[in-house]
């Protein structure tokens, strides 16, 4: 199974998780995640080849309701906590640069 996690793995995961970590944090997490994953390996002592995965414990599956229009949050309330907004929109820095315009 997977060997202990490398510094490169941690850097890749930080990018996937959208966390800009410092070099110190990368270093620290490499060690800590490594020891946690090593502990978790103990699950491999169990033969689970005939066991179904259990995602949740409820005795129900699909929940349906009539497709009706209900009251929802107005845009004023929705935007009230936004770090930046303009009119009825959330505002973010430019996504496309000039060359791709």
């Amino acid at each position: 199974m997977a060997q202990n996690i490398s510094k490169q793995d941690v850097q890749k995961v930080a990018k996937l998780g959208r966390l800009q970590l410092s070099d110190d944090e990368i270093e620290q997490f490499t060690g800590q995640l490594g020891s946690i994953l090593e502990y978790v390996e103990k699950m491999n002592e169990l033969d689970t080849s005939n066991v179904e995965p259990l995602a949740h414990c409820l005795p129900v599956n699909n929940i349906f309701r009539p497709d009706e229009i209900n009251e929802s949050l107005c845009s004023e309330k929705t935007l009230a906590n936004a770090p930046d907004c303009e009119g009825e929109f959330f505002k973010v820095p430019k996504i496309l640069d000039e060359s791709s315009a």
Partner: protein
Amino acid sequence: MSAELLNLSCSQLKAQIISKKTTSLQAVNAVLQAIEKIEPVVGAYISIFKEHAIAQAKNIDEKIASGKEIGLLAGVPIAVKDNMCTVFGATTCASGILKNFHAPYNASVVEKLIAADAVIIGKTNLDEFAMGSSTENSGLKKTVNPWDTNRVPGGSSGGSAAAVAARLCFGALGSDTGGSIRQPASLCGVVGLKPTYGRVSRYGLVAYGSSLDQIGPLTRTVQDAALFMNVIAGHDCKDSTSISQSIMPVPDYLDKLDEPVKPLKIGIVSQLNAGAESLVQKAINDSLELYKKLGAALVEVKMPHFDYAIAAYYMIATAEASSNLARYDGVHYGYRTADPKDYIEVYSKSRAEAFGQEVKRRIMLGTYVLSAGYYDAYYLKALKVRNLIRSDFVKAFENCDCLMMPVSPMTAFRIGEKTADPLQMYLADVYTIAANLAGIPAISIPCGFDDNNLPVGLQILAPAFTEDKLLRIARMHEVNTEFHLKKPKLIQ
């Protein structure tokens, strides 16, 4: 006078308010005075709603004076963990990323508390996003254990447990993903109930591990826990994981509370109890002896997969957390970094600057186990182990009505004692995690003290949707002991 008032349970206070021996305003003022005196030491609250609570209390007193119908928590001052949305005050999750977040709606449980005429006095501290077992991961403030201020209150609902123990409210709501209600209840000497997954609506509870999270009460008596359940249990169309009334009707939890369960068969797992500190073991054994005297039979049961619960839990919970916490993007709400150089930095710098270390660690772990190449080995494997653990419980409950074991292997530990090694902190959850993986209800009740006068909790676990019976079993212990009446020195 006010000290006497503060020692009442919710049920007793409610009776006094309804019979006009006291008023909700007097109760609120007594709590606010206690907060002024004790809160600077304990640090249980993130927000306190002084004016709001006084106005609310006056309203309720007027309602009673004019003979109007009054709710189940008539004028009782209570607290809510700060990961449940309220339209009044902030909802911070003790995180820098939500420090200034004002929810646009109330959580369903908050609506239910208000409808029951409870007075919400404030919102309590927690480990950031409920991730931790000591409340030391709060990004906003420090909470200490009222029994020994050099020690942790437990976590993640440490603020709620400390507030209830220190008489800074009469009861509180917490949330429990891997023990976050029961473990702080145990460490602070109060009652903490994690209901069955699906029994209480999670709408408006800030999500951590969605297949494991459940809201429940922290109170000073089992009777109060039953009273709270009468208020908060039930289906909610806004939470599709809450169980409908037709599949699983909600009983009246107070109805037969004082009827002992007879015959009662208690399952014990000897090898498990042996893992706890000796004085914790002793308190548990004393409780089992008490139940035997009350006519219960003890049966040895096997939980062959219990040992794997922590491993499975930290895969499943972190995977769900990494996905749930993707919503903190610096765009829709919450903290945004001051000067992002591009849109990617809006995400990655905002998150890096505002999340604490434990939250980052769990996002990293969860992202890793869900990433290509590792999904089957870690996440899928954990879901299969989860099924084995649930089967252990199903088999165990064929031979007994409930299981009893410690809540925590140790009493309250010193602040800073376990922060250096995250894995050591995770291992402290050994007794509580399995109930979340299996979705079953479990309660922590005060059952003794160690030689440092620190409280010990007894955990009772029962089959899904049998909270009524679970509470009756716990109540048998309560009416025959006085542990729940002891108070920390700090407030004597």
